[in-house]
């Protein structure tokens, strides 16, 4: 310490102080700048997690309800009656056992409803069932096929219409032992709305509720429905049929789509070149339920070559139909990539000679584990490889090489459940998209293949 008076302080001590001061500033600045510019090695502890399989739950499959028609009763035009019950096939994979069905009553129609197949947890094999209905009457005409589905808390339904001539019926099947309360949000030209009659629909345990779609969405041309179940999951299906004038022009079951995503795939779409036109067209219905954005639709042919591409602007919550054109007939896959999560499904009119039927091609979820499906008689299975690498899978025990972006069809499959076996995914993107379809003269129908909910990947849990 310097002990002289300021004015008389020796020059040397003042210089010393100056040196110290400059050194301090230089040190501080140098150290800070050095640390700012050069990365400092850190320590990062991994969060603790464990992958657990969890015990398997019972598998429940709900098949579509019988074909219902309204207006058969002259006294009560809104009364629903059963036109025909669907045929079923399938069963337990690798087993001769034919599972027993339980019939769910349709509470508000007072007729027998859909069949439910159950398999206790840990009983081994996979259960797969499908249904088909081939109708040719004055009330309805056409072919519908569907897979028997597992109940879900949230279902998105793309398809159907509330306009004149359409007689679409929404069925909500609750196979569980717990009452379910269902709320429906509809998306139409005016955006989303909750129909008055669709708030808090009670679906009692082990029953089905059937509702004419026109009572929910009036004359909406391109409706999309979001069905949210509380307390217990349900299977929501739209039975869609249309009459032009007095002629029924087609019928279809519309099942739940996968949840909105930025990439949506509609595999195995069969397009046909009509006589009077020079392109094979299909309309793709798109909805961005959250935010506005744009979607690019690519049409890829069976060999994996992209044949057309369309970019469609999307307004939030307003469904739009976009036209896709192919240069010729054939099997294609539609890949939708968007900058916001979207839903998509393709609709096509299937016209052969005098006969007409329409078909909804649904988008399907990525399959990345072994999946069992039941294929209705005469139907074919289409598998699309979304990867830019070839993938090896096996269908019904036969190994198949899938070229990049190729769509492969399999027909003549047995009526027993078929296993699509996918080897353990090597890369993240691996997996396939698949659907089942029938496109015959005047009869066309399709459904998407999804993995069983009970056969999910391991759950990664971060416990604390």
């Amino acid at each position: 310490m310097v002990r002289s008076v300021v004015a008389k302080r020796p020059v040397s001590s003042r210089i010393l102080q100056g040196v110290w001061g400059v050194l301090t500033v230089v040190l501080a600045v140098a150290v800070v700048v050095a640390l700012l510019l050069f990365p400092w090695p850190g320590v990062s502890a991994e969060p603790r997690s464990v992958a657990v399989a969890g015990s398997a739950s019972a598998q429940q499959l709900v098949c579509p309800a019988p074909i219902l028609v309204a207006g058969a009763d002259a006294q009560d035009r809104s009364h629903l009656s059963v036109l025909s019950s669907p045929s079923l096939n399938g069963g337990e994979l690798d087993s001769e056992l034919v599972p027993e069905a339980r019939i769910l009553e349709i509470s508000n129609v007072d007729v027998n409803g859909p069949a439910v197949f159950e398999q206790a947890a840990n009983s081994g094999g996979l259960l797969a069932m499908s249904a088909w209905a081939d109708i040719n009457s004055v009330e309805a005409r056409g072919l519908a096929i569907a897979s028997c589905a597992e109940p879900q808390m949230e279902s998105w339904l793309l398809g159907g219409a509330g306009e004149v001539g359409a007689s679409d019926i929404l069925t909500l099947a609750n196979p569980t032992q717990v009452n379910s309360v269902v709320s429906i949000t509809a998306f139409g030209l005016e955006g989303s709305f909750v129909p008055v009659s669709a708030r808090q629909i009670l679906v009692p345990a082990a029953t089905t509720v059937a509702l004419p779609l026109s009572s929910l969405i009036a004359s909406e041309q391109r409706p999309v429905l979001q069905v949210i179940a509380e307390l217990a999951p349900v299977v929501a299906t739209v039975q869609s049929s249309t009459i032009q004038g007095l002629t029924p022009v087609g019928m279809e079951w519309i099942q739940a789509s996968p949840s909105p995503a930025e990439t949506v795939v509609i595999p195995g779409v069969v397009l046909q070149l009509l006589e009077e036109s020079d392109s094979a067209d299909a309309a793709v219905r798109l909805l961005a339920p959250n935010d506005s954005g744009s979607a690019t639709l690519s049409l890829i042919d069976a060999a994996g070559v992209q044949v057309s591409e369309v970019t469609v602007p999307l307004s939030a919550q307003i469904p739009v139909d976009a036209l896709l054109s192919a240069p010729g007939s054939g099997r294609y896959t539609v890949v939708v990539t968007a900058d916001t999560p979207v839903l998509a499904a393709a609709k096509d009119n299937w016209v052969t000679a005098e006969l007409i039927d329409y078909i909804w091609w649904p988008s399907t979820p990525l399959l990345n584990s072994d999946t069992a499906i039941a294929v209705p008689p005469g139907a074919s299975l289409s598998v699309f490889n979304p990867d830019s690498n070839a993938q090896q899978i096996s269908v019904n025990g036969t190994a198949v090489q899938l070229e990049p972006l190729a769509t492969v069809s399999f027909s003549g499959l047995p009526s027993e459940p078929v296993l699509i076996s996918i080897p353990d995914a090597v890369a993240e993107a691996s997996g396939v998209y698949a659907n089942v379809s029938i496109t015959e003269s005047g009869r066309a129908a399709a459904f998407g293949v999804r993995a069983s909910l009970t056969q999910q990947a391991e759950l990664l849990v971060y416990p604390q």
Partner: protein
Amino acid sequence: MSSRVHAIIVASAGDSSRSVPHLERTLSALGAASVTPDAVTVVVPEGNAELLAVVANSALSQLNARTLRGNFSFVDAVQSVQLHPEAELVWLLSQDSAPKRLALGHLLRVLETTPTVAIAAPKLLRWRNEHQIVSQGVTMTRRTYRAVDLIRGDFDQGQHNDREEILGADIRGMLVRRKAWESIGGLDRAFARADLGLDLGYRAWLGNWRVRAVPTAEVLTAGDMVAGSADPWNPVHARREYLQQRRARYHRMLSYSPAGLVPFVWLAILPMAFWYTLTGLLAKRPWTISANWGAALVSMFAFGAVAASRRKIAKAQQISRTQFTSLFADHQQLSDALGSNYAAISGPVTRRSIAFFSGGGAWIVLALLVLSAVLFYPLLRWQSLAGGGALPLGDSALELWRSAFFALPGAGVAPAVLQDPFVLVMSVLGTLTFWAPSTSIILLWLLAMPLAGFGAWIAATRLSDKAAVRALVAVLWALMPSLLTALNEGRVAAVIVHLLLPWLFYTASVALRSWGSAAAASIIATFIVAAAPSLLPALILVTLAALLFLAITRQARGALRVLWVPLPAILFFLPLAISQFMTANPWAILADSGPVVPWLVADSPLAQLWQIFGLSSLGSEQLFGLPDALAWLPLLAFAPLFAFAGYALFARRYVLAISFWLVMLVGALGTMLFPALRLAHTGAQTVAIWFGPHSSVALLGLLLAAALAYDAWWQRRPLQRRTKRLFWRNLSAHILAGTAVVLLAVVSFPAMNQVLRGEAVVHAGTGSTLPAYVTASGASNPSLGTLLIDPIDQNTLSSTVVWGGTDTMISHPTKITTELILNEAELQQAELVADLTRSSQPGAIARLSQEGIAFVLLRNDQGSDAASNELLLSSASALNANPALDAVGSTERGQLWRVSIPVSEREPLSGSDVTISRLMWLLYGIFGLSVLLLAMPTVDSVRRAQRMPRQIALAERRS
């Protein structure tokens, strides 16, 4: 003169620079006396040529020297001397007791004229100051045998000369009648040095002799610690003597008490030692603790010495001590003796009033209170603080204290773990509003700005006595972005650190000179480090730097006090540190305590600069509406402070300025280095150490350096010498200071009103993090848990269990949040959660109920992206379908289910865990109480402080 006197002078080896001249003076004083002893024996250590030379050179006749081997005591020395056969009187002297010319004459006269007097004791005066009395008679309390100096340290004006009969006296200079000496058995070696004269006098009285003070006989003593009590003006001697005094006291109690009482006295010694430990701490004499317990234990087991002393007394005793009761200390004498410490605290009161009210401090705090009330007025209606790192504190302050040290975690299924010292901070905070602990956090938020201003104002008094300098520091500290960021983001620990840092500076800066300040600083440091463990390295670093500085400048005194400052903090972290080392996770000691809150770590140099200055981790666009290219602009607000701080390096007190710069550097490094440590995790996220506390440290260094410069820049001069140049100089200082305030206010403004605009992370809480339904059922029972499930994406979820009515600030010990591997209970929980969300079998619920989990809450905090939504929905469906769960329904915090089968309670702490908890409570309780006592101000410590300047580094300032 007929009586023959044999003088015994004991010299010690000790410091020859003292012993040689002292012995020379003593011998020459004897030679120059009016009456010289007939025989003089000097006892010197064997082989000590210097002392022997002194004896040899002495002109005194009848002088002989006796050498003794080894380290002998005064009693040894006296007993080794063969008394002259004709000696009738023994004069006990030490090397440093130089009698005045007439001393022996006066003493002799008393003994010769009064045959019943056995001992005549002179008045002992100070060696270098003959007007001050070292000792003039000693007595003791009647029942507790506490030695009491009749007169000690007073100025000698003859005012005490009327006292004649005394119980005892200092051994030095005592003239003892040989007959009595032999009948009462001479000196008792059980009393090593202290209280030898008291014991001798007491036995003389019991032997029906009398002891007389002879004030006219004056002996000068230097306090060489050869015999007698220490120099009252020398604190080092007082320390050394303490052990002797305590031993003598306990020994007296055991030897003087009636035989029947001895067992009880023996039992009372340990409680007494405990009591004196407390009072020693309160008196800021921590060194007494070891001496106290040492003396107690030695005395308790010195059975032989006690027996010998009791035999000596029994042999000497002729009369009952009731016959000389009046000589024992009365109440007045005792209180006089206790108050005589004043003598040691002398000198003028140099400290001026702190002028908190007249200096404008009160107005600033009031203004900040008003500002805070305006900015945070929505908080007045909030029940608790939520959002960011703010969680409730639970229902009971007692529960908080109970969770200190070792307890079951309030969240999660892990077994009992070591708690963070942070729990203590929260316990103290929660106790402030013990009826509703969570309210204390609301109060903390409302009062944060005024409290910051208050603390900083007080801290500034260490640097300047100018009101404006103090005001600058107070206002700037309350407006610092690091505080406002912490308030907006719910960082309770960072707020506490910001409020305590000025107090740490205020106390630690004077730790060197007082134990009270050192202890207070150590408590504050413990709280700061408990709130932000990543400051522990900074605390240790700064302490080491201070010690290094002391070593370089060769200041040994007070180094122990400086060393003490970080010690309690280190001790409180020790068990946790050991435990983390044992699990090979040493970095985790530094992890933030309390709830783990993810935040965006700076990824660019500019963003890191922002963090140094405590600016939010929000981007510049969000905070200021500035594009990224202009994000450097807010940093300019600190330019005036840097101008000041830079000036400080070249002004007076520059050593202090350099140290502030180093503190700033330490803080800045902290903000850059510690966020690279991602130690804690919550759910699937790893969370970095929060930069806020380090930023506060850096800003404190900057602010204090600036205050130093402002104080130096602005110069006061007498009116007549006011010059134009000085006017401009001072004006520029004030303008710079004003600019600093305005710019900082501008930069802090967006952060300041975030709560008001409802844009802050913190928001109103309901007092619980769980749905009201659970709170209603679980509030009274902390043994019931709620399983929380958070879907993260399609196949990923995190889960935890919250016990009782709410998640709290103390439910997340770092021992769990930084744990690297899952324990058995957590693995089981993971499987349980997978079962619950994937299937609807009631078996999983049975396991839940056994663990004490009564509710399941499925949360949707991760946003509603489709992937997590899918898992959310499927989990909800599985839970709904579970027959052993009753759906309570949707709540504001998620979907809730209640376990419908009977639920057993959570397993309580095991017996050994309870023992660990209690043991830690006991040890830390004693330690904490000791530090508190040490820090508590007393009359003495306040008097001492008033004699020292409030500001620091004044010597440097005068230079």
